[in-house]
């Protein structure tokens, strides 16, 4: 731009100089032509006067040039060069060399001589001396041009500079506008992002609150059910084999069992079910489930398993995962009443920071299990409430409203998360994300439920610690029935005392939650410190932090969840004691 301005200025100056030079030259030429014309006219008119020596006439013709102020001298000379008429010339003869047509300029004057001819005869010479405009005057005239050029130059420079400034300002404005638009866009995105995060947070807060409530109720219910079930079982044992009353007891037991199952599911939602996580190959788990799925879902549902190769392992309670998948598959079936295709897909997935923030989960590597159906789909409102306990879209009596809640709780408790992608009429995909197991442990064969029962129990001595008198009484009765020696304690203090007085106690069977300042875990730690060979079996209405961390039992910890049947208790005791012997 500056170069342009400079070039423009130089061009302007050059034009000015060229104009001056042209003017100067043009002036000289014009002036010479003008004086030559004047001399020629005089020469033409003065012929007769010269020929017939009419001095007066010649003088009159010469005087005619006085009207031109620049003409300083005029001379009319005869053939001999003698001055006949004129003014401003030195009297005397004209130099011979001037008799021909000559134009010469010197200093500030121009001298022109023209021969006077009539026909072919030369009669004399006319001499005209004219003043040229003095250089100073001409320069003054050119000063106007110079001034104009300068002004034009100044205007030119001002225009260029202004143009530059304007262009720069425009560019800056455009840039600022773009910045503003970008900032605005970022702000909008940020607002939308925050809204999503807040929504996710609200959702998780809500679920957390419902979980707290549900967990609390379920815990108390479990204790109550334990009493009901325990006493019913005792009653059943005491009734004659063929007594009619057995039917009523069995019905009551079935009802209690259903209640227990319900509280179990509530606990699962509240993330308070005891889990037994182990390294699991999800692909293998899905393959193993195929038979079960086929029989559960019926002939009208085609199950497709799309299993990723090189799938990572996960650390999860395999039984619960199986149960969760079954739950999802049943839901999928229900969404396709006239049959259809159900797809179970596995894949490795990475959740980055941004997505994790939005979903309110931890970023990292996950194993994805997606269960998709081609069914009726769900509206956004339904998706938003799908995990709430007792929320169901199924007909009354068809669904408990706890299936997805249970899966949700299980996933959260397992450090993963669950996501529903659905649109009404376009089917539903439920995605389960389980954290990748980084330490590579060969997946253990899933423990099959033990078929063992109370029969064949050994003669071990068991210390029962339970602050609920009814539960303790039931438990001790049951254990004695199994053939165990039983020592009872209502709290940790009593338990330690009993332990001191009965050093032959083989197993400590304690509730995790105890009244009196010391919980079951702390009691167990202290007891094992005193008697290293002591085995410990915990029981609990729900898993507390004391023994369950992040949804997982501490290694080496055995637990039986309330309410338990005496068969389950017998099997668990047997397992713990036998394991102790094997290791002991």
């Amino acid at each position: 731009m500056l170069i342009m301005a400079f070039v423009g200025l130089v061009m302007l100056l050059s034009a000015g100089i060229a104009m001056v030079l042209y003017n100067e030259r043009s002036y000289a030429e014009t002036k010479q032509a003008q004086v030559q014309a004047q001399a020629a006219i005089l020469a033409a008119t003065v012929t007769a006067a010269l020929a017939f020596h009419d001095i007066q006439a010649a003088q009159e013709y010469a005087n005619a040039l006085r009207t031109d102020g620049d003409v300083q001298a005029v001379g009319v000379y005869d053939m001999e060069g003698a001055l006949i008429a004129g003014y401003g010339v030195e009297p005397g003869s004209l130099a011979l060399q001037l008799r021909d047509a000559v134009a010469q300029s010197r200093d500030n004057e121009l001298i022109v001589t023209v021969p006077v001819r009539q026909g072919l005869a030369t009669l004399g010479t006319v001499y005209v001396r004219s003043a040229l405009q003095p250089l100073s005057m001409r320069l003054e005239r050119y000063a106007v041009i110079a001034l104009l050029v300068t002004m034009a130059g100044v205007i030119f420079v001002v225009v260029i500079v202004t143009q530059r400034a304007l262009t720069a300002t425009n560019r800056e404005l455009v840039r600022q506008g773009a910045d503003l638009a970008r900032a605005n866009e970022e702000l909008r995105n940020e607002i939308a992002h925050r809204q999503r995060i807040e929504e996710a947070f609200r959702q998780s807060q809500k679920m957390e609150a419902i979980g707290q409530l549900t967990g609390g109720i379920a815990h108390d219910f479990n204790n109550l059910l334990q009493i009901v079930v325990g006493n019913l079982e005792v009653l059943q044992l005491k009734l004659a084999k063929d007594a009619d009353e057995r039917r009523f007891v069995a019905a009551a037991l079935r009802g209690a069992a259903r209640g227990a199952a319900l509280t179990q599911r509530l606990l699962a939602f509240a993330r308070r079910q005891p889990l037994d996580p182990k390294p699991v190959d999800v692909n293998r788990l899905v393959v193993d489930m195929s038979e079960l799925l086929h029989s559960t879902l019926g002939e009208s549902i085609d199950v497709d398993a799309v299993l990723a190769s090189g799938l990572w392992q996960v650390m999860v309670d395999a039984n619960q995962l199986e149960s969760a998948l079954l739950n999802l598959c049943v839901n999928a079936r229900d969404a396709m009443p006239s049959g259809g295709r159900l797809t179970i897909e596995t894949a490795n997935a990475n959740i980055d920071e941004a997505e994790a923030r939005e979903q309110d989960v931890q970023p990292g590597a996950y194993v994805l299990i997606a269960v998709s159906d081609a069914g009726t789909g769900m509206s956004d409102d339904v998706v938003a409430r799908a995990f709430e306990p007792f929320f169901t879209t199924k007909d009354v009596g068809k669904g408990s409203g706890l299936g997805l809640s249970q899966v949700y709780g299980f996933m959260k408790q397992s450090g993963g998360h669950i996501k529903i992608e659905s649109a009404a009429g376009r089917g539903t995909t439920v995605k389960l994300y389980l954290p990748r197991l980084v330490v590579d442990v060969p997946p253990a064969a899933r423990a099959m439920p033990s078929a063992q029962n109370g029969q064949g129990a050994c003669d071990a001595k068991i210390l029962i610690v339970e602050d609920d008198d009814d539960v303790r009484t039931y438990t001790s009765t049951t254990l004695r029935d199994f053939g165990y020696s039983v020592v009872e304690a209502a709290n940790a203090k009593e338990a330690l005392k009993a332990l001191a007085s009965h050093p032959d106690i083989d197993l400590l069977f304690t509730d995790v939650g105890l009244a009196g300042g010391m919980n079951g875990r702390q009691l167990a730690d202290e007891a094992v410190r005193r008697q290293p060979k002591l085995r410990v079996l915990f029981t609990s209405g729900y898993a507390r932090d004391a023994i369950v961390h992040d949804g997982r039992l501490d290694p080496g910890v055995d637990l039986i969840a309330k309410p338990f049947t005496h068969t389950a208790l017998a099997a668990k005791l047997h397992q713990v004691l036998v394991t102790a012997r094997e290791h002991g």
Partner: protein
Amino acid sequence: MLAAGFRHGVAALAACVAASGVVPAHAQVPSLSLEHGVKATYLHKIAAFVEWPASAFESADSPLVLCVAGNDPVGKLVPEAAIGRTYGMREIVVRRIAQPAAAGGCHILYVAGLRDETITAYLESVRDKPVLTVTDGAPDRRFKGAVNFVIRDNRVRLEVDLELATAHRLVVSSKLIGIAARVVP
């Protein structure tokens, strides 16, 4: 003023005559011979300001014939004054004639120093011819040629009779008319 004008006029005459080469350049005194010399010079100078029809000349290079009739002192000076003079590319030759009948081949006919009847006879003899008739100091139009010498302010001046010149099929230059003492339209 008059004296000064006279002296100037005489000096101019002298210069003119000197230029014509008739009298010595140092002649300072006005005299009849000076006046005659000037007139003799003017006779061939007039030719430059007059155009003759082409038919007036036999060929492209035939000379311009200046005839002198009468026993006039000017006429005696004319041959010498016209030596080497030209009219364009044409040579100017001087011929003295003694009879009006001889004036037919003239281009310029100077008639002076004769009786009025004789002058009239000469003028009449070339009435329809392309001849520039020149007379000297004729008082009456009957005796004047197309050009008539007169003395004004001590200087030899010309009277021009354009009507007569036109009658002779001659074209007189406006330059000559411009300096004429009197012009008969």
